[in-house]
């Protein structure tokens, strides 16, 4: 077990700064998620931590030791790749045993460890198969078993669920998180799927263009976004951003906090005339798409709400002051961060 720390970590490819001075601390035993849009540098950051990519600048510290210059095998890390990268010519058993063989572990001990890892992941019965004879979910578990078997200091996972179909993914998410809790190994998990990030991470680091925009618990990230990017990247549909009349600030509020409000304006309430274009019925909820002035806005009504707002008309809507976040219209930074505890 070990904490992972990066200090001013940078990676410059020919033209692009893929990772741009990242300071990140992942606590011992923590499940940290790197979340960000495609091409923001998540994989590059992970590969540098794993030693597969040499940083242009900065340091990587694992378990208090500076490993920046060490090769992957000296770092005691295990990695699960998006493609799983199982060795296609080896049986499941040999795939899982490969890291142990590389350590020149004795055969009986190898067998014991492989059996242990396989039983944790419930793949004991697949030992003699080749990877091509496995389903996507089974492959993922073999890849996890191969990572687990050496009891590494750190797990690095790069979108390990993206090859699964939606149903399989939900249960795999659950299994993976339970598994991590059980072995309590420091885990850095890369994804561009915010549902995965919110559901699994102890903390989430939201990345954009090689930088970390915000690092916090899922609730922090969702409720107290540090800037406009985080506010609109996390949440689906994203946070509404309505400019103030003088144009200096953006008022941000989540679609579920935007409700229909008849009657006079009250204290602690901001009211808007909301022109509805379109209604989307999604079973558990309804979404209303429309505009406040020129700004596109979405309202989300739970299935339990009795009020409606049929499209084609303008209705009085409101949001509680406590649900409003304020951002600087120019820089996109939060201006009311005093509210954050």
């Amino acid at each position: 077990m070990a904490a992972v720390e990066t200090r001013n970590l940078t990676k410059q490819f020919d033209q692009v700064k893929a990772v741009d001075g990242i300071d990140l601390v992942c606590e011992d035993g923590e499940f940290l998620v790197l979340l960000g849009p495609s091409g923001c540098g998540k994989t590059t950051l992970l590969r540098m931590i794993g030693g597969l990519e040499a940083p242009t600048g900065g340091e990587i510290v694992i378990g208090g030791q500076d490993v920046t210059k060490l090769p992957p095998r000296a770092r005691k890390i295990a990695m699960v790749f998006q493609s799983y990268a199982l060795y296609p010519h080896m049986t499941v058993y040999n795939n899982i045993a490969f890291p142990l063989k590389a350590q020149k572990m004795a055969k009986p001990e190898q067998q014991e460890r492989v059996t242990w890892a396989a039983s944790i992941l419930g793949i004991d019965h697949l030992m003699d198969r080749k990877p091509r004879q496995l389903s996507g979910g089974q492959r993922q578990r073999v890849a996890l078993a191969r990572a687990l078997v050496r009891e590494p200091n750190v797990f690095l996972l790069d979108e390990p669920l993206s090859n699964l179909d939606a149903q399989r993914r939900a249960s795999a998410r659950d299994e993976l998180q339970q598994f991590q809790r059980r072995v309590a190994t420091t885990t850095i998990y890369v994804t561009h799927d915010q549902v995965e990030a919110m559901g699994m991470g102890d903390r989430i680091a939201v990345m954009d263009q090689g930088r970390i925009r915000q690092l916090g618990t899922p609730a922090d990230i969702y409720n107290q976004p540090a800037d406009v990017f985080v506010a609109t990247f996390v949440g689906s549909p994203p946070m509404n951003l309505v400019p103030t009349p003088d144009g200096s600030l953006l008022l941000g509020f989540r679609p579920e906090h935007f409700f229909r409000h008849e009657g006079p304006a009250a204290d602690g309430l901001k009211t808007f005339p909301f022109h509805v274009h379109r209604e989307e019925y999604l079973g558990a909820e309804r979404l209303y798409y429309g505009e406040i002035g020129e700004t596109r806005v979405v309202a989300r009504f739970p299935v339990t709400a009795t009020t409606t707002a049929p499209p084609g008309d303008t209705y009085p809507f409101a949001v509680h002051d406590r649900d409003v976040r304020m951002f600087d219209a120019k820089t996109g930074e939060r201006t009311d961060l005093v509210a954050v505890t």
Partner: protein
Amino acid sequence: MSAPAAVQPAARPSVPRYWMDREGILGPVMLLPVVVYIVALVGFPLVLALIYSFSDVTVGDQTINWVGFETFSQAMANPTFRLALRNTLLFTLISQIVVLVLGNILALVLSADFPGKRLVRFLILLPWTTPIALGVIGWLWLLDGLYSPIDALLRMIGLLGPDTLFGPGRNMLWLAQPDTAQISVVLVHVWRTLPLATVILLAGLTAIPQDLRDAANVDGAGFFRQLVYIRIPLLLPIMAVAVLYGIVFTFTDMTVVYLLTRGGPPVDSTQVLASWAYFKGIEGGNLAEGAATAVFLFPALAGVAALMLRMARRAETN
């Protein structure tokens, strides 16, 4: 009735104009040159050789009398034939083992990133682009009895000359003694088939996904473990293809022996089936025996090809 009648005048002129779009016509038309080529230049000689090999035809008496396998037993009774058969198998085997080892090493080296990589790759492929006869004439000079640059190099590094490993003479006389002549033939075959094997293996190496190499690195495998347990097993099918090419080229080649040693020295020590077939059938005038010699290994060779292709396919699906 009236609708088809109205359509017809418009459809008619389109027939000649669109025949190029009709696969039923265009396909055979485009295949024709290849079919003619194969039938005339591959099929006809092959069939003729097969017919000859079951007859007693000679240059002097060109009537074809069916004699069954008599020509074959006659050819096999000749000690030179047996020597040529042994040499053919030996030269092929040894040269292809050397090619496999060198080809793998070269491919590994060339798959790494270093400045001037493209140039080196190009240079390595050059022997493949040289017509084989020209290449062998070059080798004639390299292996010359008096002026061989290889000898000069050996002398320079102290391996040739008085009190050295290769003996007192100033020259190896490569092509004048049976054993060195055999080594020379193998050497030229290696030189000839190595480039293609290297390029094929290089392509195979490059096709191994980066993820697998990364995984092996993270799993703690060093260079040799990765080589033995990951790269070589994954490369096996493509190696089979490379070796298949090498075997076929070496097996069927007569140019190297014909130009380099003419089968000698003194007579027949480097004779191979292809050159022996030529000397016997064309220069010696015994068409039937030459043909029998030439087609002797045809079934075996076809078998090797089928086997290798099967191996490659099976490994591919693994």
